[in-house]
């Protein structure tokens, strides 16, 4: 069976909510039925058939083709995804993978804000750059990402992992300011540079960095250490499509903090 493919044929004037585009929701439906599904676009509703050329039949393998030059206003791609795979050829908008619980979400371009927000399972690979609040909590939520694995091949914006509760967030590039703010637990790895106020109000969790950030005074230096648990962490990277798999030395400088908020988080700087 060929993948169920959605080719964007219009440039939406408002943001378009693509949350109905999940394998669970489309399984067993005929193309004609799928074309009649309504999508919220701003304050209007558009039928799927007005927005996309649809082809293929395998609802477990969805491809969204957002060709270059088209808008990145495609929000909520992979929201509440539980199984199957969604591949986005091009860019995605806000809330990609929001409340995702399983399956795979592959985005071959950039994503905007709140990607992987409240994601609790599955695998998300952003092959371009990610916007602000990646893996973070949306306004009103008390927790951000709660599990699963997210890899960003490019850079990420500000406040990534805000109130993150669990899971693995790997950024191969750099991240902006307030990385890991109010983090509750989980692991964020960043191979590039990080901005200001890294780990601000972080409660628990691990930030694994290659470059030394400008730390504020509520992070304390705990010295150089060889930590065996990093072997386990590196082992858990095996098989993931990321250059984090090349990490092998487990010697780090450990900073504990934010001591203004319990101080049980840590920033590990790879030596």
């Amino acid at each position, binding site marked *: 069976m060929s993948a169920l493919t959605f080719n964007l044929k219009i440039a939406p004037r408002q943001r378009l909510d693509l949350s109905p585009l999940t394998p669970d929701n489309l399984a067993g439906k005929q193309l004609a039925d799928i074309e009649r599904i309504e999508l919220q676009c701003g304050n209007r509703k558009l039928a799927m058939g007005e927005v996309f050329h649809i082809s293929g039949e395998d609802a477990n393998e969805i491809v969204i083709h957002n060709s270059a030059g088209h808008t990145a206003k495609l929000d909520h791609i992979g929201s509440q995804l539980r199984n199957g795979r969604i591949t986005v050829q091009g860019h995605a908008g806000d809330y990609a993978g929001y409340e995702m619980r399983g399956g795979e979400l592959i985005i071959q371009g950039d994503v905007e804000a709140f990607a992987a927000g409240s994601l609790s399972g599955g695998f998300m690979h952003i092959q371009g750059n990610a916007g602000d609040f990646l893996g973070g909590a949306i306004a009103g939520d008390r927790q951000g990402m709660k599990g699963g694995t997210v890899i960003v091949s490019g850079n990420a914006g500000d406040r990534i992992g805000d109130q993150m509760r669990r899971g693995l967030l790997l950024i191969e590039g750099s991240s902006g300011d307030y990385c890991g703010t109010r983090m509750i637990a989980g692991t964020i790895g960043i191979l590039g540079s990080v901005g200001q106020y890294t780990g601000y109000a972080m409660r628990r969790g691990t930030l694994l960095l290659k470059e030394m950030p400008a730390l504020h005074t509520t992070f304390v230096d705990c010295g150089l250490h060889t*930590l*065996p648990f990093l072997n*386990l962490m590196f082992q858990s990277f095996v098989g993931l499509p990321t250059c984090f798999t090349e990490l092998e030395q487990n010697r780090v400088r450990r900073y504990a903090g934010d001591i203004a908020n319990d101080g049980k988080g840590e920033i590990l700087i790879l030596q």
Partner: protein
Amino acid sequence: MILNGVQIDDTFAEAFNMRGTRVIITAQNLKWAYHAANAMAGFATSVIACGVEAGIERELKPDETPDQRPGVSVLMFAMGSAVLMKQLETRMGQCVLTCPTAAAFSGIEGDPETVTRIGLGKNLRFFGDGYQISKRFGGKRYWRVPVMDGEFLSEETTGMVRAIGGGNFLVLAESQPQALAACEAAIEAMRQLPNIIMPFPGGVVRSGSKVGSKYKSMIASTNDAFCPTLKGLVKTQLSPEIESVMEIVIDGLTAEDISKAMHAGIHAACDIGAAGGIRRISAGNYGGKLGQHHFHLHKILGPTA
């Protein structure tokens, strides 16, 4: 049945249902993994007074362990799950947590219907006094407990399965050194096999017991029928030329594991044969009424023996 001049008695070993678990202990090098494992498997020869029966199953190369360090696997058996859980926690706390560079991981995975998860580092984490850190990798939770040499790392749980304890055979020889040499050969052969331990010192026990005693407080006492110095006094099982009897007790995860171990061990002992003073191989049982598993020597050794 005769094997290389050694008479194999038409009898059986009587074994019991137990609960078993496996812990993988790693350290900076094999020496320190052994220090932790030997401490953990120490004073664990018999459930009668030790609570558990434990032993080192085998060495593990770095590529066989979760943290890529050299290690050893320890098997531990008890008559019930509550005792096993308690003993595991105690021994983890006093023998592995205390041992420099040592870390502990689950050695049994599998279907939740057959494998029960029991605490490994689950309660030891409280030693961290609030500074302990939980990390989840690959669906498993690990605890990092700050200790004076760095961090003690332990998986939260390990697997507990239904197992069997008390498989055994007796080596009857013309002299004590000959009995011991045969037992050493048997143990050497059996240690190559997975899923089993021989919990007694060096794998061999000399004080086989019978049920009951003339003393009211004793539930078991010396197996006088197999004591060579009592040959004239009691209803002995020994012929005049037998001067020493030693027993090898085997605990294993399955009946098949124990059968294979008995097969390998008896063959190794019989390889020394009558020429080396080994005269008989027998097995310990209680008439077949107490244990749920019977390992018949002739059946294990097969018709070709």
